[in-house]
Protein backbone atom coordinates (compact mmCIF):
# COMPACT_ATOMS: atom_id res chain seq x y z
CA UNK A 1 0.00 0.00 0.00
CA UNK A 2 1.43 3.35 -1.06
CA UNK A 3 0.91 6.44 1.08
CA UNK A 4 -0.73 8.88 0.45
CA UNK A 5 -3.82 7.08 -0.76
CA UNK A 6 -5.63 8.66 -3.67
CA UNK A 7 -9.36 9.01 -3.00
CA UNK A 8 -10.07 12.04 -5.16
CA UNK A 9 -11.11 10.29 -8.36
CA UNK A 10 -13.84 12.84 -9.04
CA UNK A 11 -11.15 15.47 -9.49
CA UNK A 12 -9.10 13.35 -11.84
CA UNK A 13 -8.09 9.73 -12.29
CA UNK A 14 -4.69 8.17 -12.84
CA UNK A 15 -4.22 7.04 -16.40
CA UNK A 16 -4.63 3.33 -16.99
CA UNK A 17 -1.30 1.88 -18.22
CA UNK A 18 -3.21 0.22 -21.07
CA UNK A 19 -4.29 3.68 -22.22
CA UNK A 20 -0.76 5.02 -22.11
CA UNK A 21 0.47 2.04 -24.10
CA UNK A 22 -2.08 2.73 -26.83
CA UNK A 23 -1.08 6.40 -27.00
CA UNK A 24 2.71 6.16 -27.14
CA UNK A 25 3.20 5.40 -30.85
CA UNK A 26 1.16 8.48 -31.76
CA UNK A 27 3.69 10.84 -30.22
CA UNK A 28 6.70 9.66 -32.19
CA UNK A 29 6.37 7.25 -35.11
CA UNK A 30 2.71 7.93 -35.93
CA UNK A 31 2.85 11.68 -35.50
CA UNK A 32 0.86 12.70 -38.58
CA UNK A 33 -1.80 15.37 -38.80
CA UNK A 34 -5.18 13.66 -39.12
CA UNK A 35 -6.19 16.38 -41.58
CA UNK A 36 -3.31 15.60 -43.98
CA UNK A 37 -5.26 13.81 -46.68
CA UNK A 38 -2.45 13.38 -49.17
CA UNK A 39 0.09 11.10 -47.50
CA UNK A 40 0.42 8.00 -45.36
CA UNK A 41 1.33 9.89 -42.15
CA UNK A 42 -2.00 11.68 -42.29
CA UNK A 43 -3.94 8.52 -43.18
CA UNK A 44 -2.49 6.63 -40.22
CA UNK A 45 -3.46 9.45 -37.85
CA UNK A 46 -6.91 9.76 -39.37
CA UNK A 47 -7.48 6.04 -39.07
CA UNK A 48 -6.56 6.17 -35.38
CA UNK A 49 -8.93 9.07 -34.81
CA UNK A 50 -11.75 7.30 -36.64
CA UNK A 51 -11.22 4.20 -34.53
CA UNK A 52 -11.26 6.27 -31.32
CA UNK A 53 -14.45 7.97 -32.49
CA UNK A 54 -16.07 4.54 -32.73
CA UNK A 55 -14.80 3.56 -29.28
CA UNK A 56 -16.23 6.73 -27.72
CA UNK A 57 -19.53 6.44 -29.60
CA UNK A 58 -19.97 2.82 -28.55
CA UNK A 59 -19.67 3.64 -24.87
CA UNK A 60 -22.63 6.06 -25.03
CA UNK A 61 -24.70 4.27 -27.67
CA UNK A 62 -24.05 6.93 -30.32
CA UNK A 63 -22.91 6.87 -33.93
CA UNK A 64 -19.26 7.78 -34.56
CA UNK A 65 -20.41 10.67 -36.74
CA UNK A 66 -21.91 12.31 -33.69
CA UNK A 67 -18.66 12.67 -31.75
CA UNK A 68 -16.81 16.01 -31.76
CA UNK A 69 -13.40 15.90 -30.13
CA UNK A 70 -12.53 18.78 -27.81
CA UNK A 71 -9.94 19.68 -25.19
CA UNK A 72 -12.15 18.42 -22.36
CA UNK A 73 -15.53 18.73 -20.72
CA UNK A 74 -15.20 22.45 -20.00
CA UNK A 75 -14.79 23.16 -23.70
CA UNK A 76 -17.60 20.70 -24.54
CA UNK A 77 -19.96 22.44 -22.09
CA UNK A 78 -19.08 25.84 -23.52
CA UNK A 79 -19.46 24.68 -27.10
CA UNK A 80 -22.82 23.06 -26.38
CA UNK A 81 -24.39 25.91 -24.45
CA UNK A 82 -23.03 28.92 -26.31
CA UNK A 83 -23.17 27.03 -29.61
CA UNK A 84 -26.84 26.08 -29.19
CA UNK A 85 -27.73 29.59 -28.06
CA UNK A 86 -26.14 31.12 -31.14
CA UNK A 87 -27.49 28.50 -33.55
CA UNK A 88 -31.08 28.58 -32.27
CA UNK A 89 -31.45 32.20 -31.23
CA UNK A 90 -34.17 32.79 -33.83
CA UNK A 91 -36.21 30.07 -32.18
CA UNK A 92 -35.90 31.31 -28.62
CA UNK A 93 -33.51 32.71 -26.05
CA UNK A 94 -34.25 30.75 -22.88
CA UNK A 95 -32.04 28.09 -21.28
CA UNK A 96 -32.80 26.07 -18.16
CA UNK A 97 -30.10 24.60 -15.95
CA UNK A 98 -29.68 23.78 -12.25
CA UNK A 99 -27.79 25.45 -9.41
CA UNK A 100 -25.69 22.34 -8.72
CA UNK A 101 -24.12 22.25 -12.20
CA UNK A 102 -20.38 22.42 -12.72
CA UNK A 103 -18.94 25.94 -13.10
CA UNK A 104 -18.26 25.26 -16.78
CA UNK A 105 -22.03 25.06 -17.35
CA UNK A 106 -22.99 27.83 -14.93
CA UNK A 107 -20.43 30.26 -16.29
CA UNK A 108 -21.27 29.45 -19.90
CA UNK A 109 -24.90 30.21 -18.99
CA UNK A 110 -23.84 33.52 -17.41
CA UNK A 111 -22.10 34.31 -20.69
CA UNK A 112 -25.32 33.57 -22.55
CA UNK A 113 -27.12 36.02 -20.26
CA UNK A 114 -24.59 38.68 -21.20
CA UNK A 115 -25.35 37.97 -24.85
CA UNK A 116 -29.04 38.71 -24.20
CA UNK A 117 -30.25 35.23 -23.28
CA UNK A 118 -32.45 34.32 -20.34
CA UNK A 119 -31.40 31.53 -18.00
CA UNK A 120 -33.40 29.78 -15.29
CA UNK A 121 -31.27 28.19 -12.57
CA UNK A 122 -33.46 25.49 -11.04
CA UNK A 123 -33.02 24.80 -7.33
CA UNK A 124 -32.62 21.16 -6.29
CA UNK A 125 -34.37 19.13 -3.64
CA UNK A 126 -32.67 18.27 -0.34
CA UNK A 127 -31.31 15.09 -1.88
CA UNK A 128 -29.72 17.00 -4.77
CA UNK A 129 -32.20 15.92 -7.45
CA UNK A 130 -34.02 18.29 -9.76
CA UNK A 131 -37.76 18.61 -9.11
CA UNK A 132 -39.44 17.56 -12.36
CA UNK A 133 -42.56 19.61 -11.61
CA UNK A 134 -40.39 22.70 -11.21
CA UNK A 135 -38.66 21.96 -14.50
CA UNK A 136 -42.01 21.54 -16.23
CA UNK A 137 -43.19 24.85 -14.77
CA UNK A 138 -40.05 26.64 -15.93
CA UNK A 139 -40.45 25.59 -19.58
CA UNK A 140 -41.60 28.37 -21.90
CA UNK A 141 -42.16 28.59 -25.67
CA UNK A 142 -38.83 30.45 -25.74
CA UNK A 143 -36.90 27.57 -24.10
CA UNK A 144 -34.35 26.19 -26.54
CA UNK A 145 -32.17 24.13 -24.21
CA UNK A 146 -32.32 22.26 -20.92
CA UNK A 147 -28.86 21.51 -19.52
CA UNK A 148 -28.78 19.21 -16.49
CA UNK A 149 -25.75 17.18 -15.47
CA UNK A 150 -25.88 13.38 -15.39
CA UNK A 151 -23.96 12.71 -12.15
CA UNK A 152 -22.85 15.40 -9.75
CA UNK A 153 -19.14 15.91 -9.18
CA UNK A 154 -19.40 16.71 -5.46
CA UNK A 155 -22.10 14.42 -4.12
CA UNK A 156 -22.45 11.92 -6.96
CA UNK A 157 -26.23 12.08 -7.27
CA UNK A 158 -27.61 10.88 -10.60
CA UNK A 159 -30.33 13.08 -12.09
CA UNK A 160 -33.41 11.54 -13.71
CA UNK A 161 -32.09 12.42 -17.17
CA UNK A 162 -34.62 10.35 -19.09
CA UNK A 163 -37.54 12.16 -17.46
CA UNK A 164 -35.81 15.53 -17.82
CA UNK A 165 -35.17 14.88 -21.52
CA UNK A 166 -38.83 13.93 -22.04
CA UNK A 167 -39.98 17.21 -20.50
CA UNK A 168 -37.53 19.23 -22.61
CA UNK A 169 -38.63 17.48 -25.81
CA UNK A 170 -42.33 17.85 -25.01
CA UNK A 171 -41.78 21.61 -25.07
CA UNK A 172 -39.63 21.56 -28.19
CA UNK A 173 -36.32 22.18 -26.44
CA UNK A 174 -33.05 20.29 -26.77
CA UNK A 175 -31.59 18.35 -23.85
CA UNK A 176 -27.91 18.63 -23.02
CA UNK A 177 -26.11 16.82 -20.22
CA UNK A 178 -22.67 17.26 -18.71
CA UNK A 179 -21.93 13.57 -18.17
CA UNK A 180 -18.28 14.01 -17.19
CA UNK A 181 -18.66 12.08 -13.94
CA UNK A 182 -21.08 9.46 -15.24
CA UNK A 183 -19.69 8.25 -18.57
CA UNK A 184 -17.61 5.14 -18.08
CA UNK A 185 -18.91 4.66 -14.54
CA UNK A 186 -22.57 3.82 -15.18
CA UNK A 187 -24.45 2.91 -18.36
CA UNK A 188 -25.20 6.04 -20.40
CA UNK A 189 -27.13 5.67 -23.65
CA UNK A 190 -27.91 8.80 -25.63
CA UNK A 191 -30.88 7.20 -27.37
CA UNK A 192 -32.45 5.44 -24.41
CA UNK A 193 -31.93 8.57 -22.31
CA UNK A 194 -33.07 11.06 -24.96
CA UNK A 195 -29.86 13.10 -24.91
CA UNK A 196 -29.22 15.62 -27.70
CA UNK A 197 -25.84 16.87 -26.53
CA UNK A 198 -23.44 15.29 -24.04
CA UNK A 199 -20.11 16.45 -22.64
CA UNK A 200 -17.45 13.99 -21.51
CA UNK A 201 -13.82 14.06 -20.51
CA UNK A 202 -11.01 11.49 -20.77
CA UNK A 203 -9.20 12.22 -17.51
CA UNK A 204 -12.20 11.32 -15.36
CA UNK A 205 -12.17 7.79 -16.80
CA UNK A 206 -8.51 6.82 -16.63
CA UNK A 207 -7.57 8.59 -19.86
CA UNK A 208 -5.28 11.56 -20.44
CA UNK A 209 -5.96 15.16 -19.45
CA UNK A 210 -6.65 17.74 -22.12
CA UNK A 211 -9.02 15.73 -24.27
CA UNK A 212 -12.75 15.21 -24.24
CA UNK A 213 -15.71 15.07 -26.55
CA UNK A 214 -19.09 16.55 -27.25
CA UNK A 215 -21.80 14.27 -28.54
CA UNK A 216 -24.07 16.14 -30.96
CA UNK A 217 -27.19 14.29 -32.14
CA UNK A 218 -27.46 13.87 -35.91
CA UNK A 219 -30.89 12.30 -36.28
CA UNK A 220 -34.25 13.04 -34.68
CA UNK A 221 -33.52 15.95 -34.45
CA UNK A 222 -30.37 16.93 -36.31
CA UNK A 223 -28.64 19.23 -33.83
CA UNK A 224 -26.11 21.88 -34.77
CA UNK A 225 -23.93 24.13 -32.70
CA UNK A 226 -22.17 27.31 -33.78
CA UNK A 227 -18.41 26.89 -33.57
CA UNK A 228 -16.76 28.88 -30.79
CA UNK A 229 -13.30 28.96 -32.38
CA UNK A 230 -12.50 30.04 -35.90
CA UNK A 231 -10.09 28.00 -37.95
CA UNK A 232 -9.73 25.10 -40.32
CA UNK A 233 -13.25 23.77 -39.95
CA UNK A 234 -12.31 20.45 -38.35
CA UNK A 235 -14.90 18.22 -36.68
CA UNK A 236 -17.71 18.95 -39.15
CA UNK A 237 -17.08 22.66 -38.77
CA UNK A 238 -18.02 22.66 -35.12
CA UNK A 239 -14.54 22.62 -33.58
CA UNK A 240 -11.51 23.89 -35.43
CA UNK A 241 -7.99 22.98 -34.42
CA UNK A 242 -5.56 20.20 -35.32
CA UNK A 243 -6.73 17.06 -33.63
CA UNK A 244 -4.86 15.90 -30.54
CA UNK A 245 -4.26 12.46 -32.01
CA UNK A 246 -2.46 10.78 -29.07
CA UNK A 247 -5.01 12.23 -26.65
CA UNK A 248 -7.91 11.10 -28.80
CA UNK A 249 -6.40 7.60 -29.09
CA UNK A 250 -6.14 7.59 -25.29
CA UNK A 251 -9.75 8.73 -24.86
CA UNK A 252 -10.88 5.97 -27.22
CA UNK A 253 -8.93 3.30 -25.37
CA UNK A 254 -10.19 4.61 -22.01
CA UNK A 255 -13.77 4.32 -23.29
CA UNK A 256 -13.19 0.80 -24.57
CA UNK A 257 -11.82 -0.36 -21.20
CA UNK A 258 -14.67 1.34 -19.31
CA UNK A 259 -17.24 -0.38 -21.50
CA UNK A 260 -15.64 -3.79 -20.91
CA UNK A 261 -15.18 -3.40 -17.17
CA UNK A 262 -18.00 -1.08 -16.11
CA UNK A 263 -20.40 -3.68 -14.80
CA UNK A 264 -17.98 -5.54 -12.55
CA UNK A 265 -16.15 -2.36 -11.60
CA UNK A 266 -19.34 -0.56 -10.55
CA UNK A 267 -20.24 -3.52 -8.32
CA UNK A 268 -16.80 -3.64 -6.77
CA UNK A 269 -16.64 0.09 -6.17
CA UNK A 270 -20.12 0.46 -4.73
CA UNK A 271 -19.36 -2.37 -2.29
CA UNK A 272 -16.14 -0.63 -1.21
CA UNK A 273 -17.86 2.75 -1.03
CA UNK A 274 -20.70 1.31 1.04
CA UNK A 275 -18.18 -0.27 3.39
CA UNK A 276 -16.40 3.06 3.84
CA UNK A 277 -19.65 4.93 4.30
CA UNK A 278 -21.05 2.42 6.80
CA UNK A 279 -17.89 2.58 8.89
CA UNK A 280 -17.68 6.37 8.87
CA UNK A 281 -21.35 7.02 9.59
CA UNK A 282 -20.88 4.99 12.76
CA UNK A 283 -19.17 8.10 14.05
CA UNK A 284 -21.62 10.27 15.97
CA UNK A 285 -23.08 13.24 14.11
CA UNK A 286 -21.93 12.23 10.65
CA UNK A 287 -24.23 12.60 7.69
CA UNK A 288 -24.17 11.46 4.06
CA UNK A 289 -24.90 14.31 1.65
CA UNK A 290 -27.18 13.74 -1.33
CA UNK A 291 -29.48 10.97 -2.47
CA UNK A 292 -27.96 7.56 -1.69
CA UNK A 293 -30.23 5.52 -3.98
CA UNK A 294 -29.48 7.49 -7.14
CA UNK A 295 -25.76 7.91 -6.83
CA UNK A 296 -22.58 7.13 -8.74
CA UNK A 297 -21.01 3.92 -7.39
CA UNK A 298 -17.68 5.41 -6.36
CA UNK A 299 -18.59 8.57 -4.43
CA UNK A 300 -19.53 9.31 -0.82
CA UNK A 301 -19.79 12.85 0.50
CA UNK A 302 -19.95 12.87 4.28
CA UNK A 303 -20.24 15.75 6.76
CA UNK A 304 -18.64 15.31 10.17
CA UNK A 305 -20.42 17.85 12.28
CA UNK A 306 -18.39 20.13 14.58
CA UNK A 307 -15.14 19.70 12.70
CA UNK A 308 -13.97 21.91 9.87
CA UNK A 309 -13.22 20.21 6.56
CA UNK A 310 -9.90 21.79 5.78
CA UNK A 311 -8.59 21.23 9.28
CA UNK A 312 -9.81 17.66 9.00
CA UNK A 313 -8.02 17.09 5.71
CA UNK A 314 -4.81 18.26 7.30
CA UNK A 315 -5.16 15.51 9.90
CA UNK A 316 -5.82 13.07 7.04
CA UNK A 317 -2.66 13.91 5.15
CA UNK A 318 -2.19 10.25 4.25
CA UNK A 319 -5.38 10.51 2.23
CA UNK A 320 -5.96 12.63 -0.85
CA UNK A 321 -9.59 13.69 -0.54
CA UNK A 322 -11.54 16.87 -1.14
CA UNK A 323 -13.58 19.13 1.14
CA UNK A 324 -16.63 21.31 0.64
CA UNK A 325 -14.99 23.83 2.91
CA UNK A 326 -13.25 26.71 1.22
CA UNK A 327 -11.28 28.30 3.98
CA UNK A 328 -8.65 29.46 1.53
CA UNK A 329 -10.98 31.37 -0.76
CA UNK A 330 -11.36 35.07 -0.15
CA UNK A 331 -15.10 34.73 0.32
CA UNK A 332 -14.82 31.88 2.85
CA UNK A 333 -17.91 30.51 1.12
CA UNK A 334 -18.35 26.76 1.43
CA UNK A 335 -19.46 24.57 -1.48
CA UNK A 336 -22.41 26.02 -3.42
CA UNK A 337 -23.51 22.49 -4.26
CA UNK A 338 -23.84 21.48 -0.61
CA UNK A 339 -25.50 24.78 0.27
CA UNK A 340 -28.06 24.28 -2.47
CA UNK A 341 -29.13 21.03 -0.74
CA UNK A 342 -30.16 23.25 2.16
CA UNK A 343 -27.14 22.29 4.25
CA UNK A 344 -26.23 24.90 6.81
CA UNK A 345 -22.86 26.55 6.27
CA UNK A 346 -21.28 24.77 9.21
CA UNK A 347 -22.26 21.33 7.84
CA UNK A 348 -21.02 22.32 4.40
CA UNK A 349 -17.72 23.36 5.98
CA UNK A 350 -17.55 19.93 7.65
CA UNK A 351 -17.82 17.82 4.52
CA UNK A 352 -15.35 15.45 2.92
CA UNK A 353 -15.73 13.87 -0.50
CA UNK A 354 -14.35 10.37 -0.88
CA UNK A 355 -13.93 9.40 -4.54
CA UNK A 356 -12.89 5.82 -5.13
CA UNK A 357 -11.47 4.57 -8.40
CA UNK A 358 -10.28 1.69 -10.52
CA UNK A 359 -7.06 1.33 -8.56
CA UNK A 360 -8.57 1.65 -5.08
CA UNK A 361 -8.12 -1.51 -3.01
CA UNK A 362 -10.03 -2.79 -0.01
CA UNK A 363 -6.89 -2.42 2.09
CA UNK A 364 -6.77 1.27 1.16
CA UNK A 365 -10.42 1.75 2.08
CA UNK A 366 -9.87 0.10 5.47
CA UNK A 367 -6.88 2.34 6.06
CA UNK A 368 -8.86 5.42 4.98
CA UNK A 369 -11.56 4.56 7.51
CA UNK A 370 -8.98 4.30 10.29
CA UNK A 371 -7.28 7.57 9.37
CA UNK A 372 -10.60 9.41 9.09
CA UNK A 373 -11.97 8.10 12.36
CA UNK A 374 -8.80 9.12 14.17
CA UNK A 375 -8.76 12.55 12.55
CA UNK A 376 -12.40 13.28 13.34
CA UNK A 377 -11.93 12.17 16.94
CA UNK A 378 -8.76 14.25 17.29
CA UNK A 379 -10.35 17.38 15.86
CA UNK A 380 -13.47 17.00 17.95
CA UNK A 381 -11.27 16.98 21.04
CA UNK A 382 -10.02 20.36 19.82
CA UNK A 383 -13.46 21.66 18.86
CA UNK A 384 -15.31 24.07 21.15
CA UNK A 385 -18.48 23.31 19.18
CA UNK A 386 -18.21 19.59 19.92
CA UNK A 387 -17.77 20.37 23.63
CA UNK A 388 -20.86 22.59 23.58
CA UNK A 389 -22.82 19.93 21.74
CA UNK A 390 -21.79 17.36 24.34
CA UNK A 391 -22.89 19.73 27.10
CA UNK A 392 -26.27 20.02 25.44
CA UNK A 393 -25.86 23.66 24.44
CA UNK A 394 -27.92 24.66 21.41
CA UNK A 395 -25.42 26.27 19.06
CA UNK A 396 -28.20 28.24 17.42
CA UNK A 397 -28.86 29.97 20.72
CA UNK A 398 -25.42 31.59 20.67
CA UNK A 399 -24.96 34.98 19.08
CA UNK A 400 -21.94 34.40 16.88
CA UNK A 401 -19.82 37.33 15.86
CA UNK A 402 -19.74 36.97 12.08
CA UNK A 403 -16.41 38.00 10.70
Amino acid at each position, binding site marked *: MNIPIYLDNNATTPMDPRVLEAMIPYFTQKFGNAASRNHAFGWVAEEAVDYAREQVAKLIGASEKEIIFTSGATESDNLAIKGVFEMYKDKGNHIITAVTEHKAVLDACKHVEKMGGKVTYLPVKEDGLVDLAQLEAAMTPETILVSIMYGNNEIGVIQPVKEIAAIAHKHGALFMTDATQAVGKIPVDVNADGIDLLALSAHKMYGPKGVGALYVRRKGPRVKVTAQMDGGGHERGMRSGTLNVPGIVGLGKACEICLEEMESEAKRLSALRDKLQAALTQLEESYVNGNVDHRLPHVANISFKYV*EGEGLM*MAMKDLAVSSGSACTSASLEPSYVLKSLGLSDDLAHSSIRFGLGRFTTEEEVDYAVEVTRKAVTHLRE*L*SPLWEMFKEGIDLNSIEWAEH
Partner: protein
Amino acid sequence: MAYSDKVIDHYTNPRNVGTLDKSSHKVGTGLVGAPECGDVMRLQIQVDDNNVITDAKFKTFGCGSAIASSSLATEWLKGKSIDDAMKIDNMDIVEELALPPVKIHCSVLAEDAIKAAINDYRVKNGLAPIESEKVHH
Protein backbone atom coordinates in the same frame (compact mmCIF):
# COMPACT_ATOMS: atom_id res chain seq x y z
CA MET B 1 -1.43 24.85 -0.26
CA ALA B 2 1.63 23.92 1.74
CA TYR B 3 1.63 24.76 5.43
CA SER B 4 4.74 26.01 7.20
CA ASP B 5 6.55 23.63 9.55
CA LYS B 6 5.45 25.71 12.53
CA VAL B 7 1.78 25.48 11.55
CA ILE B 8 2.15 21.73 11.13
CA ASP B 9 3.90 21.45 14.49
CA HIS B 10 1.18 23.36 16.35
CA TYR B 11 -1.53 21.52 14.46
CA THR B 12 -0.05 18.08 15.11
CA ASN B 13 0.90 18.76 18.72
CA PRO B 14 -1.43 21.52 19.81
CA ARG B 15 -0.37 23.14 23.09
CA ASN B 16 -2.79 23.83 25.91
CA VAL B 17 -5.92 22.23 24.54
CA GLY B 18 -8.65 22.20 27.12
CA THR B 19 -11.18 23.98 29.23
CA LEU B 20 -10.90 26.19 32.32
CA ASP B 21 -13.78 26.78 34.71
CA LYS B 22 -15.55 29.64 33.00
CA SER B 23 -17.62 30.42 36.11
CA SER B 24 -14.46 31.28 38.12
CA HIS B 25 -13.83 35.01 38.46
CA LYS B 26 -10.14 34.29 37.87
CA VAL B 27 -10.90 32.95 34.40
CA GLY B 28 -11.59 35.01 31.30
CA THR B 29 -13.20 33.36 28.27
CA GLY B 30 -13.20 34.64 24.70
CA LEU B 31 -15.39 32.92 22.12
CA VAL B 32 -15.02 34.42 18.66
CA GLY B 33 -15.86 33.52 15.08
CA ALA B 34 -18.92 31.72 13.77
CA PRO B 35 -19.60 28.15 12.63
CA GLU B 36 -20.99 29.49 9.33
CA CYS B 37 -17.63 31.08 8.60
CA GLY B 38 -15.77 27.87 9.31
CA ASP B 39 -13.83 29.24 12.30
CA VAL B 40 -14.70 29.34 15.98
CA MET B 41 -12.04 29.93 18.64
CA ARG B 42 -12.48 29.66 22.36
CA LEU B 43 -9.56 30.98 24.34
CA GLN B 44 -9.43 31.02 28.13
CA ILE B 45 -6.99 32.63 30.55
CA GLN B 46 -6.45 32.10 34.26
CA VAL B 47 -5.19 35.26 35.99
CA ASP B 48 -3.51 35.53 39.40
CA ASP B 49 -3.69 38.37 41.94
CA ASN B 50 -0.80 40.22 40.26
CA ASN B 51 -2.65 40.36 36.93
CA VAL B 52 -0.35 37.71 35.47
CA ILE B 53 -1.75 34.99 33.22
CA THR B 54 -0.83 31.70 34.86
CA ASP B 55 -2.64 29.37 32.50
CA ALA B 56 -4.24 29.51 29.06
CA LYS B 57 -6.34 26.94 27.22
CA PHE B 58 -8.00 26.82 23.83
CA LYS B 59 -10.34 24.87 21.66
CA THR B 60 -10.75 25.75 17.98
CA PHE B 61 -13.05 24.68 15.18
CA GLY B 62 -11.29 25.63 11.98
CA CYS B 63 -8.54 24.98 9.52
CA GLY B 64 -4.95 24.10 10.42
CA SER B 65 -3.88 27.74 10.51
CA ALA B 66 -6.70 28.65 12.88
CA ILE B 67 -5.77 25.81 15.22
CA ALA B 68 -2.08 26.73 15.06
CA SER B 69 -2.80 30.46 15.65
CA SER B 70 -4.77 29.73 18.81
CA SER B 71 -2.27 27.16 20.04
CA LEU B 72 0.54 29.68 19.60
CA ALA B 73 -1.53 32.38 21.34
CA THR B 74 -1.92 30.23 24.45
CA GLU B 75 1.85 29.65 24.52
CA TRP B 76 2.53 33.36 24.33
CA LEU B 77 -0.10 34.27 26.92
CA LYS B 78 1.25 32.10 29.72
CA GLY B 79 3.38 34.14 32.08
CA LYS B 80 2.44 37.48 30.49
CA SER B 81 0.76 40.28 32.40
CA ILE B 82 -2.70 41.29 31.20
CA ASP B 83 -1.26 44.55 29.90
CA ASP B 84 1.40 42.81 27.84
CA ALA B 85 -1.12 40.29 26.56
CA MET B 86 -3.23 43.16 25.20
CA LYS B 87 -0.26 44.13 23.05
CA ILE B 88 -0.13 40.85 21.11
CA ASP B 89 -0.67 41.80 17.48
CA ASN B 90 -2.11 39.53 14.83
CA MET B 91 0.85 40.29 12.58
CA ASP B 92 3.19 38.78 15.20
CA ILE B 93 1.27 35.53 14.76
CA VAL B 94 1.37 35.83 10.97
CA GLU B 95 5.12 36.26 11.11
CA GLU B 96 5.81 33.48 13.60
CA LEU B 97 3.67 30.94 11.71
CA ALA B 98 4.51 32.25 8.22
CA LEU B 99 0.82 32.44 7.36
CA PRO B 100 -0.01 33.19 3.73
CA PRO B 101 -2.31 36.16 2.95
CA VAL B 102 -5.44 33.98 2.69
CA LYS B 103 -4.87 32.82 6.27
CA ILE B 104 -4.37 36.20 7.90
CA HIS B 105 -7.96 36.12 9.13
CA CYS B 106 -6.96 33.20 11.38
CA SER B 107 -4.45 35.42 13.17
CA VAL B 108 -7.00 38.23 13.43
CA LEU B 109 -9.39 35.80 15.05
CA ALA B 110 -6.70 34.74 17.56
CA GLU B 111 -6.04 38.37 18.48
CA ASP B 112 -9.77 38.96 18.85
CA ALA B 113 -9.99 35.89 21.09
CA ILE B 114 -7.18 37.15 23.34
CA LYS B 115 -8.87 40.55 23.72
CA ALA B 116 -12.27 38.97 24.28
CA ALA B 117 -10.84 36.73 27.03
CA ILE B 118 -9.14 39.65 28.74
CA ASN B 119 -12.29 41.76 28.59
CA ASP B 120 -14.38 38.92 29.95
CA TYR B 121 -11.96 38.72 32.87
CA ARG B 122 -12.06 42.52 33.37
CA VAL B 123 -15.85 42.70 33.34
CA LYS B 124 -16.08 39.79 35.79
CA ASN B 125 -13.81 41.71 38.12
CA GLY B 126 -15.65 45.01 37.91
CA LEU B 127 -13.37 46.67 35.36
CA ALA B 128 -14.49 48.35 32.16
CA PRO B 129 -13.76 46.41 28.94
CA ILE B 130 -10.97 47.86 26.82
CA GLU B 131 -12.24 49.01 23.45
CA SER B 132 -9.93 47.97 20.66
CA GLU B 133 -9.57 50.70 18.09
CA LYS B 134 -7.00 48.87 16.12
CA VAL B 135 -7.60 48.43 12.42
CA HIS B 136 -6.54 44.97 11.40
CA HIS B 137 -4.01 44.48 8.69
